[in-house]
């Protein structure tokens, strides 16, 4: 008996609605966040991730309400990310009811924010989200601002630095795979597993149950994040857990 690999549905939230795009564009409506959180909670999801993709100040207020309502009703961990720039932003999300907060662009701009947040709230609630794209010459480069802005920063080097600065977990999205449903970037996951001591959540590319299995077995990820395949009811969380269990992977069966 050992720790279970986690299955984490991710909800991209724009102005209070769940949306899903392909490679960060072409957004379509995928439902009400609270309703979906309920379904995932009862289906046996191990955690939930809300990514706030609204850029506006008004949208931020809506997101706090969504988090507050969800945290009132769901008894599994909830991670919230998107637009977290300061210690104060993080504090507000934690006080709205998030258990962990994912920080992306702001940590790259100001790496000191990681140790600041970990010092204030504990490493266990600081998730560093990293969006990476393959370089033609090999390796991966970090992109920020919802995948629009290349940074020139090496993805693996940044992952290591985030660990050293006190992050509790890494949420790594392959932008080449995001929304494509052709499978996770397994080489990226393996490289991260060898490099860092932190749990890594794999994101970007899940389309089939085999993809989840491969990320956990071959990529050695500690958790898999998926959006499209669950939102559009291609598979349920239960089906995914059963499949992974049959493949010899330790999962939490409910």
């Amino acid at each position: 008996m050992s720790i279970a690999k986690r299955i984490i549905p991710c909800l991209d939230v724009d102005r209070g609605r769940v949306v899903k795009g392909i490679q960060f564009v072409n957004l379509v409506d995928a439902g009400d966040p609270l309703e979906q959180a309920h379904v995932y909670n009862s289906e046996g999801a191990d955690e939930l991730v809300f990514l706030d993709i609204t850029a506006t100040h008004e949208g931020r207020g809506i997101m706090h309400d969504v988090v507050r309502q969800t945290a009132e009703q769901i008894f599994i961990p909830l991670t919230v990310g998107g637009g977290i720039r300061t210690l104060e932003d993080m504090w507000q999300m934690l006080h709205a009811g998030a258990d962990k907060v994912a920080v992306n662009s702001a940590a790259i701009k100001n790496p000191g924010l990681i140790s600041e947040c970990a010092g204030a709230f504990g490493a266990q609630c600081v998730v560093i989200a990293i969006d990476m794209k393959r370089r033609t010459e090999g390796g991966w480069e970090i992109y920020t601002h919802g995948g629009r802005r290349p940074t020139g920063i090496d993805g693996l080097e940044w992952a290591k630095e985030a660990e050293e600065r006190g992050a509790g977990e890494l949420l790594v999205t392959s932008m080449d795979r995001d929304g494509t449903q052709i499978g996770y970037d397994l080489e990226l996951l393996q490289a991260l597993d060898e490099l860092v001591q932190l749990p890594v959540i794999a994101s970007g590319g899940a389309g089939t149950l085999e993809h989840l299995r491969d990320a956990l077995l071959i990529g050695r990820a500690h958790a898999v994040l998926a959006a499209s395949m669950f939102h559009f009811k291609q598979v349920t969380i239960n089906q995914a857990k059963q499949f992974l269990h049959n493949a010899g992977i330790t999962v939490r069966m409910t």
Partner: protein
Amino acid sequence: MITIIDYGIGNLRSIERAFQHVRPDVVRTDDPDLIRAADHLVLPGVGAFGACIQEVRQRGLEQPIMETVARQVPFIGICVGMQMLFESSSEQGMHTGLGLLKGSIKELRPSDPSLKIPHMGWNVVSPVKHNPLLSGLPADARCYFAHSFYASDVSPDNLVAVTDYGHPLPAIVAHNNIYGVQFHPEKSHDVGLRILANFATLA
């Protein structure tokens, strides 16, 4: 009244909400008189041990906690709250705990590199002895853990359940009316709610 000690660190709404799910009368407070009046007392905790225990002491809550525990009121520490029940912690310097249980808090250092730190996720809570907190739980119940430090040198008499992370770690401890859980019952779905219900109905 289930009294949750709110000493200003972390959001306690989840714990409050989870207890409300099992019993209607729940209060969050740092008022020493309300702590003394508790019939069930809860000590939560997230983040660093030193910051938590310092805040408890600065608010003058150690004395009311000790008095309440001494009159046999059921008392539970959750996560860092559980860790504070012990004598000391070596997280970022040496800190003294409440000393209600024998043992000290040490850093997790599994030798197996596939075991990442923090210990984060759903792990099996394996009973090592009977305890009312475990009533009605399935044999392979999983709870949600998120920690990098653990209780070491725990007296075997006080060890109720363990979880395996390279070696068996204390998951639930108990001594008379004093209980501690290393995981987050408020985030452990039906299993966690059952444990909280078991605590809330202790006489």
